[in-house]
């Protein structure tokens, strides 16, 4: 009970704007919530039955009055609505050059993997001054990734990806909470977010830490070489899965001669399906194409790809995605 704050720290680019809107609302509320009670109190005292006051000429209805107190609140709420709406759109639109970090929620821990393969549990290290985009999914029930100091929160759903972005501004350690009720140890599904300078972050990325296995458990005290401890770089792991582990490459050849389409550069493009529709190839589309290929068949190809449902873990799925995306990035350069 050392210190007890009354207002949360501001540690991301959103914190300022959100708090500004918040204080504006508090101010507006004081007009109604603070002044109205005093008007009521005044009227109560003034017109108490023991008070001599003028009670003649009572009015029972007045259209101008009604309109006034309909229109003024309406204008006010619409004003704050638009303010909030633009902020909201910003919160939901990650900038192009953001660092992508993969998050898996499961009862009751957070499992994080950085692009270079470094994994961590219940902790998230991020650089400051750099937009970070989290690609999140859950292995079981709905969780919610919440960093109060950054004013960001997003539910994490099983069976699909949700994303969230932020840019930390202040180095420091902040709370990380699971905000969606997810069962017995919901309140223990907490951790910390460490925001650090870019250089520190890069150093941290390459430092071996505790060994964290893909299933999220921490490994035994095995002295292991650097790479093993950090984990496989995601793209590399993904490419291994693609080439040999799962045998994708037997059909998806990059010369375009395979049974399946060439997947180079597919991420972030629009794919035409055999029923003529266009779909945007984002994480969720790629995921579905792997787990349930029959649902959306690329035009010009037969629906022969087997389902990998049950064969790839969420962790491997993330690695495959990282690999597929890297194909796109390579293409773009």
């Amino acid at each position, binding site marked *: 009970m050392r210190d007890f704050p009354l207002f949360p720290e501001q540690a991301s680019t959103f914190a300022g704007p959100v708090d500004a809107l918040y204080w504006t609302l508090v101010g507006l509320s004081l007009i109604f919530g603070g002044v109205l009670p005093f008007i009521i109190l005044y009227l109560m005292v003034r017109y108490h039955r023991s008070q001599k006051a003028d009670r003649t000429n009572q009015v029972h209805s007045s259209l101008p009055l009604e309109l006034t107190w309909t229109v003024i609140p309406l204008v006010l709420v619409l004003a704050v609505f638009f303010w909030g709406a633009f902020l909201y759109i910003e919160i939901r*639109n*990650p900038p192009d050059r953001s660092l992508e970090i993969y998050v898996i929620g499961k009862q009751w821990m957070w499992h994080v993997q950085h692009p270079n393969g470094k994994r961590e549990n219940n902790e998230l290290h991020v650089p400051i001054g750099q937009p970070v985009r989290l690609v999140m999914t859950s292995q079981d029930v709905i969780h919610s990734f919440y960093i109060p100091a950054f004013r960001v929160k997003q539910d994490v759903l099983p069976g*699909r990806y949700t994303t969230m972005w932020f840019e930390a501004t202040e180095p420091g350690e902040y709370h990380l909470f699971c905000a969606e009720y997810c069962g017995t140890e919901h309140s223990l599904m907490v951790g910390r977010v460490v925001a650090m300078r870019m250089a520190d972050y890069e150093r941290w990325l390459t430092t071996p830490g505790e060994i964290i296995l893909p299933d999220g458990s921490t490994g035994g005290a095995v002295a292991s070489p650097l790479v093993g401890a950090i984990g496989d770089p995601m793209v590399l792991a993904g490419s291994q899965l693609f080439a040999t582990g799962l045998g994708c490459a037997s059909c998806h050849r990059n010369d375009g001669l395979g049974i399946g389409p060439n997947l180079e550069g597919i991420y972030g493009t629009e794919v035409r399906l055999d029923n003529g529709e266009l779909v*945007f*190839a984002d994480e*969720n*589309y790629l995921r*579905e194409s792997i787990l349930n290929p029959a*649902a959306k068949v690329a035009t010009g190809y037969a629906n022969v790809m087997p389902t990998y449902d049950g064969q790839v873990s969420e962790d491997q799925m993330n690695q495959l995605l990282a690999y597929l995306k890297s194909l796109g990035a390579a293409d773009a350069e």
Partner: protein
Amino acid sequence: MTHKEHEHAHAHIGPATYYKIFAALMVLMFLTVGAWWVETVVEIPRALGVFIALVIASTKTVLIVLFFMHIKVSSRVVQLYAIAALFGLLFLFVITMGDYIARGWPPQLGPLP
């Protein structure tokens, strides 16, 4: 008002009307099955097929509600409540489907993530 309003016996829907409505219902039913039959042979856009089926079903409903269920000759309040359900469903469907179409579940998320 409630006491006065219904003194007059409500207008009458008799067996003759019932038979006619029934005939219309049967025709509509064969239309809808027929349309389905035709669609197995002739390719039409999927949405159109759904649309045809739903229009026919709604027509049948309107006939049943108006005549078999006497809404045509019921009091105004009862008529209003017959429509109320429609509004309830409308709210539910339009808004929920609105979210799904904008969200694109599954799988692609649309232009905004």
